[in-house]
């Protein structure tokens, strides 16, 4: 377990190299090696979605991806959503709709919702609910989250 | 003017079944002393040294007394001893 591996990736548009142990998950690497603590650990086995990030535009649970698997891939995290000082429309709508209470699940929801809107810019409520079913929120009952995503789609 | 003190059901063994007692007292502590004079043993159950026993709250006219035994009673009041609780 001692030998470490150099991994070359692009994270939020920045070419990034990191050194990780083969057993470390991408979530661990993001949080503990790179200091990107926006992705959260809620369960560490792919059930809660709090660690969700995009890998080459595809939604993944970063706790179920090994750090070494990120080699040559493009990773997007919540830290990269706002561009040039401007919040992403989803971030803005989450705030306007009070779609977060404690906020721990919010980064994961934002990434899941982004993945949805990137491939389906005009989803129905049912599609939003289906797509977000991999993200657990214990505070809101999802109502305001679903509304925020629908509103972000409408205003895009 | 005496207060209307409701004896908790589990302590009515000491009051021979009596549910409500009229006693005087300028504080909750004084009321309990007066109760104990009539029904020995009540103070030992309701208090722990100079405080209400942890887990017991005194409600004065429906409002939980924030000062415990030192809660002042200005007018004739209705007093209950109830389980204390706060919530999640």
């Amino acid at each position, binding site marked *: 377990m001692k030998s470490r591996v150099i991994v070359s990736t692009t994270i939020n548009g920045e070419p990034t190299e990191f050194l990780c142990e083969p057993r470390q998950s991408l979530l661990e690497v993001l949080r503990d090696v790179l200091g990107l603590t926006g992705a*959260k650990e809620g369960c*560490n086995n792919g*059930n809660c979605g709090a660690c969700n990030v995009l890998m080459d535009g595809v939604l993944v649970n970063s706790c179920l991806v090994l750090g070494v698997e990120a080699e040559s891939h493009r990773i997007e995290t919540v830290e990269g959503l706002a561009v040039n000082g401007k919040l992403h429309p989803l971030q803005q709508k989450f705030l306007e709709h*009070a779609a977060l209470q404690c906020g721990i699940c919010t980064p994961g929801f934002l990434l899941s919702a982004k993945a949805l809107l990137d491939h389906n810019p005009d989803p129905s409520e049912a599609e939003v609910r289906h797509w977000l079913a991999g993200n657990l929120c214990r505070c809101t009952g999802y109502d*305001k989250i679903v509304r925020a995503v629908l509103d972000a789609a409408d205003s895009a | 003017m005496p207060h209307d003190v409701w004896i908790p059901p589990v302590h009515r063994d000491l009051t021979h079944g009596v549910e409500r007692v009229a006693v005087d007292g300028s504080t909750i502590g004084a009321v309990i002393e007066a109760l104990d004079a009539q029904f020995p043993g009540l103070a030992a159950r309701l208090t722990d040294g100079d405080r209400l026993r942890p887990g017991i709250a005194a409600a004065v*006219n*429906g409002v939980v007394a924030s000062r415990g035994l030192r809660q002042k009673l200005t007018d004739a009041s209705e007093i209950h001893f109830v389980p204390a609780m*706060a*919530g*999640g």
Partner: protein
Amino acid sequence: MTSSQYKVIGSRPLRPDGVDKVTGRAVYGADVKLPGMLHGKILRSPHAHARIVSIDVSAAQALPGVRAVVTARELPSVGDTVTDLGESVVNLRYMSNNILAHDKVLYHGHAIAAVAADNPHIAEEAARLIKVTYEVLPHVLDGRAAMAANAPILLPDLRTNELGKQGSSQTNVAEHIRHQRGDLAAGFAAADVIVEREFHTATVHQGYVEPHAAVALWNEDDQILVWCSTQGSFGVQEQMAELLQVPPSRVVVTPTEIGGGFGGKNSVYLEPVAALLSRKAGHRPVKMTMTRAEVLFGTGPTSGSYIRVKMGATRDGTLTAAEAEMIYEAGAFPGSPVGAGCGVLFGPYKLENVQVDGYDVVVNRPKSAAYRAPGGTNAAFAAEAVVDELTEKLGIDPIAFRLHNAVREGDRRADGPELPRIGFIETLEAARDHAHYSAPLPGKQRGRGVAAGFWFNWGGKSSASASVNADGTVNLVEGSTDIGGSRASLAMQLAETLGIPYADIRPQVVGTAGVGYNEGTYGSRTTFSTGWAVYELGKKILDEMRQRAATHWDVPVDGVTVQDGTFAHNGDSMSFRELAGQLEVPVSVSASVFPSGFGPSFAVHIVDVEVDVETGKVEILRYTAVQDVGKAIHPAYVEGQLQGGAAQGVGWALNEEYVYDDKGRLVNASLLDYRMPTALDLPMIDTVLVEVANPGHPYGVRGVGEVPIVPPAAALANAIYQATGVRMTELPMSPARVSAALLAAAVPA
């Protein structure tokens, strides 16, 4: 229902901490990183009940990278001190035993020892190397079984407490509570219809998405610094001081952002252990985070219960008597919420003849912790189902029946005290008049259920301070953990009081070193009590600013008026901002309060379901939550409380439960198998905010966070009955249980 008397209160501004939380920048418990930080891990019991014969930590200690190992021997001996830690009454010896098992393990997952190492992986490996020899003992998981004469005894010294009266023999019954008024026999004799039923509810977890996390540093000067995710930093300070037997002033607690709590993040679990490890590891900071499995094994949950309810009513629908027996499983140590359950049970109804007996019973499950309106959901599930059955037998509309029997100001609670001004009637009327209640519900296996709920709420101690900046903004420093938008609701109350814009208030949450004493964010108390402290701050600031304005104009202060943030005297006027820019002596104030006028809350929920008779799955078609909220400071976050509480109640009702094997081992300690509701399981949750101002608060605030979890399970059970003709008496009403009940009903007895 909107009020024009306020400028800020009732509006929906963005929350002050919002940007940090949508950009991933907000620092939660597990995000804390200190120089030289070590990582701790806990070893947990594989048995439900066993004596610890020996613990050998030598192999763990020898592993390279391991810096410290601790067991209960490192904890100072604490006597049988029963202390009131704000949120709950605890016996310190039990609490210490729960942190690290002393001589026995009392549940699967009970913490035994802990390791600090250079990284979490080494710590985990080392924890596995600790050798514990056990003498396995018989276990008991069920409350009623634990009350039986031959039940295994968990705590040999435990005696039953009855509001201060102590029992004399060994028992698992920690507490017996009785409420009794009137003449039960006469009440039932006067009834035309009597319904008596038995109910069971499963152990469920609060389910916050953020696992517990803490960093502790025990300094060489014996100052203990703690950074953690908690509902109350002062509560952590008090518990640390008691458990480690150090003065509270030596413990400095800095709260991080919190990823949900729901009552489950008031008790400490990791903090004292991390502190002990820190001291032993040469005073290096130690970080401990739980895995999800550990959260389910070792924290929370709330009690499973057995409840028997009997109620009687006359033909015209007047309740004449009500009786109940409630057995709540406390987990391994005393402290179930049965006391609150006893109060919630018949809380909505005017009753002259009533008796409730509650029992707090220890069993070999994790020590229960508060969970949103603790004990209330269990109680309402039972009582509201019996009420529903009465209304059916009497042929009276469920809401009409409740309106007929509803408590009003001056009516007595089951435990005696009279109720203040409450809004239950208005809440019932709003539910009755809502389009949902009268909407057609065509289709097979569909049904509509309704249920009511009561919650006490709490006031408690709060402190806050504020200072006026030269640009006219105001820094608000508060000590209430912001779990769901309370920075906003507090800043709004200060802005309203000062008559300045919401955006000019800059709130921040600080720890024990930065503000006066605060109870935790629990009991639906923060917007009420800390809101009151903030209101006092506003009045004090205005007083000081008037003084400054008087000095500025060189006039008597009595001649200076202040309205809507403008100071005036005889034709001269200055805005708050202008005056702030000219202060010669700065203005800063603080306030501490302990208000008692918290008013209880009432909720009525309406739910439509469709039951799949093949699988037993219950689908929710429509949900409406109606609630007296006093005054909604920030309506969007109030709606969020109603929606979130309803959703948790739905999970409790339909899916969630702790599942054990025959050896007392928890077998579903993951979020795949402990199934909480997802976005796909729920519809939109409509809310109706009824505003009956609480006379016990300057802005009419009532706690809103807890009561929404009280009615859902009952409303769903009543809806399932309407859909299928089968009354479910056991939670969760999971597909397996519903299909079994449907099958049983289909087979003639």
